[in-house]
């Protein structure tokens, strides 16, 4: 407990943008075949430092086969609401779940270059206390730490629907399930919220048998992956509305609400439209009567390609789908970054008018049957995937792996983990930084990035900027 709020807690998104820039990044390292334990890499992102762009510390876990994916902080700017009563928590611990093992690590990064394990929650405890498995997205909110899961109970995670559980934000004890009335929700992926307006939005990927051993083409072509988003009364823990985006909109993944809580809209990325292989972004918003609406506002076309250049999975389509696998919104709610992992492109959209996004910048790197090189001349395996934006909106970082088994299906010949950074222009425009290129140790791929002091997909703000 601090005597004053943690200096990295900010009342408004604007104050967070004005805070000192990040000097370190935390990036997950995963061993795709489970032959080595997964780990956390601490990357120097301070351009004034001698070790800029280097991994300055690695914390390797004591177990194998966890498969790290997403992670988050024990506390964020949401603590500054008197309603939650947690103003004096420290932003000190990273909560890192293994989506294959269901094990959860709590890592103390008070001394980032000597990051150490603070607590390990074994899978049996997760199963016993929640009936869920395969923990994924982490957000800190009113009742503590919220963790979404991808699987229900049982060996293959299909015994009951997946959902969200809550952990105590001080002791890291699992408190139990979040949902009181889940309505139609039977799959899970991401979630986020608007705290003062008291609603939460959640999304759907697929059930564990649909992803753990690779994408199931038949399920995709028969539209069996998730295609709905769910709106919840956050504190009543009740699903109040489910919007079906249309069954052809397969895999509704990242939920990105506007950071400024006075804005009543957000975005959701859809991996692939099975009718035309397009990637899509939906804008969702709350209407005057409190109900929600969603509309497709961005489509990204596939690129025709000769079958001999394509992996077996795509040969029949003679095209490269964009595969929108991650999106991220800058803290000023102005630019939405869209990772097109199949095409090998990072798009930047001006979403000042959320109903009319405009493409403002684009970078090509990696990609199926493209393999665009980094400006430094080196290869970039796979395509742009997990993207994270600096709080000030000037630097955009991303890594390249989607998910172990899926990487191998879409990019059968590729291997390696890289993290790169692009500089964003004040009024749009995106350009890869030739001097920032992190190569992960042999045998490791890289996934989500967290920036020191919070970033554009961790902190929830309780007060409007204006």
């Amino acid at each position, binding site marked *: *407990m601090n005597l004053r*709020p943690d200096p990295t807690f900010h009342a408004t998104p604007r104050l967070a943008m004005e805070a000192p820039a990040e000097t370190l990044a935390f990036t997950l390292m995963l061993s795709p075949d489970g032959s080595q334990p997964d780990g956390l890499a601490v990357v120097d992102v301070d351009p004034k430092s001698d070790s800029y762009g280097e991994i300055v510390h690695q914390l390797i876990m004591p177990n194998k086969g966890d498969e790290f994916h997403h992670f988050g902080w024990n506390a964020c700017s949401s603590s500054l609401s*008197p309603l939650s009563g947690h103003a004096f928590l420290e932003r000190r611990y990273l909560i890192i779940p293994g989506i294959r093992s269901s094990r959860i690590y709590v890592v103390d990064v008070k001394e980032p270059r000597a990051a150490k394990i603070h607590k390990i929650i074994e899978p049996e405890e997760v199963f016993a206390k929640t009936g869920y498995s395969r923990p994924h997205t982490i957000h800190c909110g009113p*009742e503590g730490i919220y963790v979404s899961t991808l699987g229900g109970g049982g060996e293959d995670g299909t015994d009951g629907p997946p959902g969200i559980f809550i952990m105590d934000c*001080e002791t890291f004890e699992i408190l139990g399930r979040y949902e009181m009335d889940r309505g139609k929700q039977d799959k899970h992926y991401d979630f986020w919220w608007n705290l*003062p307006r008291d609603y939460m939005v959640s999304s759907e990927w697929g059930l564990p048998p649909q992803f753990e051993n690779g994408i199931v083409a038949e399920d995709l072509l028969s539209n069996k992956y998730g295609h709905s988003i769910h709106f919840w009364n956050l*504190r009543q823990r009740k699903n109040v509305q489910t919007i079906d985006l249309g069954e052809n909109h397969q895999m509704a993944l990242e939920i990105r609400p506007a950071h400024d809580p006075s804005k009543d809209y957000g975005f959701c990325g859809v991996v692939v439209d099975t009718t035309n292989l397009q990637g899509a972004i939906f804008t969702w918003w709350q209407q005057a009567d409190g109900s929600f609406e969603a509309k497709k506002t961005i489509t990204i076309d596939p690129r025709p390609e000769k079958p001999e250049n394509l992996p077996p999975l795509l040969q029949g389509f003679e095209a490269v789908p964009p595969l929108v696998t991650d999106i991220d919104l800058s803290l000023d709610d102005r630019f939405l970054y869209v990772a097109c992992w199949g095409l090998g492109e990072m798009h930047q959209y001006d979403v000042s008018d959320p109903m009319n996004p405009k493409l403002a910048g684009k970078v090509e790197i990696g990609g199926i049957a493209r393999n665009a090189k980094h400006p430094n001349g080196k290869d970039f395996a796979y395509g742009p995937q997990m993207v994270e934006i600096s709080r000030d909106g000037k630097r955009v970082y991303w890594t390249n792996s989607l998910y172990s088994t899926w990487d191998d299906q879409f990019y059968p010949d590729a291997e390696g983990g890289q993290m790169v950074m692009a500089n964003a222009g004040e009024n749009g425009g995106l350009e890869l930084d030739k001097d920032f290129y992190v190569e992960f140790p042999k045998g490791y791929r890289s996934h989500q990035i967290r920036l020191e002091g919070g970033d554009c997909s961790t902190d929830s703000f309780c007060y409007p900027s204006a």
Partner: protein
Amino acid sequence: MAEISTAAALWGAVAASGVYHGVNPGMGWPLAVSAALMDRSQGSLWRALAALAAGHLLAMAAILFPFSALMVLAQWHREIQTGAACLVIALGLYLLWNRRHPRFLARVPPSRLVLWSFLAAMAHGAGLMLVPIYLGICRTVETDAGHAAAGTLITGNAGIAALVALLHTAAMTAAGGVLAYGIYRWVGLKFLSRGWFNLDLVWALSLVLVGSISLLTLP
């Protein structure tokens, strides 16, 4: 003369504790700033403050009126005062030992500020802190009036309880209101993360202090 200055000091303590509660962001003034910013309307700031004040007032009343009813047992005044003081000290010690915030408060929707303010005041013993002060005031009045009839005493004590609750809440609302309006209008929300101090320890100790003073000054 001594009685008058004791009474004045006790009434002063009622107002001072109100200011103390009011300036603490944990008691809610940032929610008024948030309401005004969310609605882009200064009116929302005053409405939120009024809701916070109503909840706090209810919490004060809920604690003080049972004690005012007890005061009818005139011959037990000393015991009641001792008991109240011990209760306040016990709560202070409990809060010293258990520094965790009650999680049920996080279940209250942000739209229900009256309820939240009531529960927050109850959970932190804001009303209980006033009890020893209130009982002290009752005693000064009683000594002044001599041995009045029981009926008059009850209404008199209830009236004092209402006055104590009102004065305390008014002081709290004024203090919180000045801060909320100043932050909203001029200072900006940066103040929130800079000017919020962890008063948990001080708060628990002040409960112990109020209880102890009350015990030591028993006639």
